[in-house]
């Protein structure tokens, strides 16, 4: 086989891979919209206020692990206390914070030591103390102070102390919509096969928060954040809904997910040895149900229920994305025996191969593509007409897909109502494939390298605190501490 033949094959593989990606993403987008419409027609005009009053509603424990969150912790716990749900228990787990997270909690919520004992036996680091409030109005709040063991360990400790059939695991820096729990609980009530439910996570940066509630949704002025807004909308609106439709969802964002406690405990709780604990848990829960031959569903609510702060700078973004890549690889490797096993249904036959090809290998393929492009051009073996046309097609398709995402956003939530938002988004859409995407590929490559080197740590996430609403239309920014 000579060099030109090798090049021909390489080009062929590249073309077919591109076409495959285009078809798969378009298919997912169509499926998502079909599922969204079905969801909307099933949930039209639902008055959740009656449900929030009923003791019939299943009891839910909200578990929020906190590590060095003193900047936002009080606002976050207030947001949790404002949740509309009658049968609620809020468990905040202070995971050995080095700042004054615990002190702030004790002071703000008038906490005292409690004799409460754990009901579960999941492995977790030593508990230093369990606190409840002296105030009757705050009786649903439990604060667990424990030694540092990481997010998964803190969640396991919280699960041990929960006394509910359903457990909602959230990131404490998230702001939940007041009716989010009602919406998330509905699939569990409608079907006892439901084992886990996830919801849309949206970007909070620069939006205005008052007393734990989002007062105004705004687009961030930070360009990196804007890229992530587009990315989040695309992933949640045109991706996960489709996976939920075919019951193939293997990732519920760690920011907000509700789980059946019995299944969660039966499969051993969160894995403390991975940084991709959210994905790993869903895969293990699904495996457990398949192994026990029990019917189950992992559902997804296509509504913005949870708002989170995303990295505002490249350094934090790099840490986050390389960690996500490590988490994905760890989960795929740990459960490699799921691949193409008919026993594991959609998960084994479709979800796992998709994640392998599009989440793990795609950045590597793109990277090798760029390297070979450079090499071929150095050696003068490149057909520039073809190459530029192909690159042009990839770019135009990326813009098209983002436009499709924005159309979906516009016709469903219409969150960004400012007149100029559309032009800002347009700029983001046009720049994303050439500015943001290469960066994401680079961070994914770093994640692969870190994985090979055996890195296990999370890396710190910088918090800026929330913007609070001021009187009238004036906006006052609370400076971060």
């Amino acid at each position, binding site marked *: 086989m000579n060099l030109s033949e090798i090049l021909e094959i390489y080009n062929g593989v590249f073309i077919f891979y591109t076409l495959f990606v285009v078809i798969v993403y378009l298919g997912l987008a169509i499926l998502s919209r079909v599922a969204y419409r079905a969801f909307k027609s*099933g949930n*039209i005009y639902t008055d959740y206020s009656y449900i929030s009053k*009923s*003791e019939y509603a299943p009891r839910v424990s909200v578990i929020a692990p906190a590590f060095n969150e003193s900047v936002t912790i009080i606002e976050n716990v207030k947001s949790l206390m404002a949740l509309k749900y009658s049968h609620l228990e809020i468990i905040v787990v202070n995971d050995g914070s080095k700042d004054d997270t615990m002190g702030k909690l004790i002071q703000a919520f008038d906490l005292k030591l409690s004799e409460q004992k754990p009901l579960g036996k999941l492995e977790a680091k030593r508990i230093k103390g369990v606190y409840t409030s002296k105030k009757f109005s705050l009786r649903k709040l439990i604060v667990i102070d424990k030694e540092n063991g990481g997010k998964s360990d803190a969640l396991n400790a919280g699960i041990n102390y929960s006394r509910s059939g359903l457990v909602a695991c959230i990131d404490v820096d998230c702001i939940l919509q007041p009716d989010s729990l009602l919406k998330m609980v509905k699939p569990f*009530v409608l079907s006892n096969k439901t084992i886990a439910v996830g919801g849309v996570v949206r970007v909070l940066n620069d939006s205005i928060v008052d007393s734990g509630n989002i007062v105004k949704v705004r687009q961030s002025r930070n360009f990196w954040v804007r890229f992530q807004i587009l990315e989040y909308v695309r992933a949640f609106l045109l991706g996960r809904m489709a996976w939920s439709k075919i019951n193939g969802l293997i990732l519920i964002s760690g920011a907000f997910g509700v789980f059946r406690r019995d299944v969660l405990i039966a499969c051993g709780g969160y894995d403390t040895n991975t940084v991709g604990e959210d994905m790993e848990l869903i895969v293990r829960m699904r495996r457990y149900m398949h192994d026990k031959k029990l019917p189950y569903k992992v559902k997804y609510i296509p509504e913005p229920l949870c708002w989170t702060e995303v990295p505002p700078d490249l350094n934090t973004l790099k840490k986050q994305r390389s960690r996500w890549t490590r988490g994905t690889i760890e989960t795929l490797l740990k459960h490699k025996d799921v691949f193409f096993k008919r026993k594991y249904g959609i998960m084994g036959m479709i979800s796992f191969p998709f994640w392998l090809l599009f989440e793990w290998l795609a950045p590597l393929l793109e990277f090798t593509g760029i390297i070979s492009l450079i090499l071929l051009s150095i050696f003068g073996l490149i057909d520039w007409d073809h190459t530029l046309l192909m690159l042009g*097609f990839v770019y135009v398709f990326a813009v098209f897909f983002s436009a499709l995402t924005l159309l979906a956003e516009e016709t469903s939530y219409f969150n960004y*109502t400012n007149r100029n938002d*559309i032009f800002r988004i347009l700029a983001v859409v046009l720049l994303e494939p050439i500015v943001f995407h290469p960066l994401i590929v680079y961070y994914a490559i770093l994640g692969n390298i870190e994985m090979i080197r055996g890195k296990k740590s999370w890396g710190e996430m910088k918090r800026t605190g929330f913007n609070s609403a001021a009187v009238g239309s004036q906006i006052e920014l609370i400076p971060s501490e």
Partner: protein
Amino acid sequence: MAILNPTLIAVSIGITALASIALFASIFVIRCTKKRRSHMKKRMGRHISYLLIQVLTSDEKTNSIKRLKRIIGKKENMHVSVRALATQEFINLARTVSNDHLPALQGLFLNLGLQHFNILRAEKGRLKQKLKAFEVLSKLRIITALPVIKQYVLDPNKTLRAEAIMSLMRLSYNPLFFLDNQKVTLSVWEAMKIHGMLKEMPDEKIPQFSQWLNHRQKTVVLFCLRMILHYQQKADLQLLTRLSKSKSVRVAEEAQKALILRKILVYSDPDEEDNQIDQNDYQHLNVA
């Protein structure tokens, strides 16, 4: 390789680029239309709401009613149904005003002829229109709508069924009369909604749940047992004893709890004839 044909790729780029431009254009159009419509709706809604409040609160009503009639008579304004907007304002007011103002609001609703519009929407409208019509008709106690809404109690569409049940609960003197003919399973979701609704009702409207303990639907029996416990009602001893031995674990458990409650209620009432009941009646429950 045919697929590498430059013309083909160039055509694909052109088509995709055109599609992207079309998408952006439609986003722009949708945004503008939405904004215009929502602005229009807000303005008109505010105007209608102002006039409604005027009628309800001020002594000079005739002029406001005339103006309302004139506005509602227009039917459509920039593709926005004025009657639908007025209906929405009635819903908003019905949600907020006290019971004292409700008859006046109802009178105004009838006076403006909105009941025919909403009954028609309840009969022939799209799903959302039906649901809105149900809410306004039931909140304003338009009894003539009862037969129309009643036909949806057994509808296969769960949302429609649940909202019809809610509306009938508001309209009817016996809020749970539909349970008599309940042929389909009462879902936990529906049960939660019914319970939430019952909690808003005055005590005299809460029915005796024991009347449905012989129901053929196990889910209805379970719901009634739970309500007996919640409202601390005393059910028939024999019936509860029979249910406490039911094959359904959940029904048996709830019946046992209801039996215990019954025992407590009976013993706490010295005039109660049932005080004479032999202790053996409760023996199988192993009550501590």
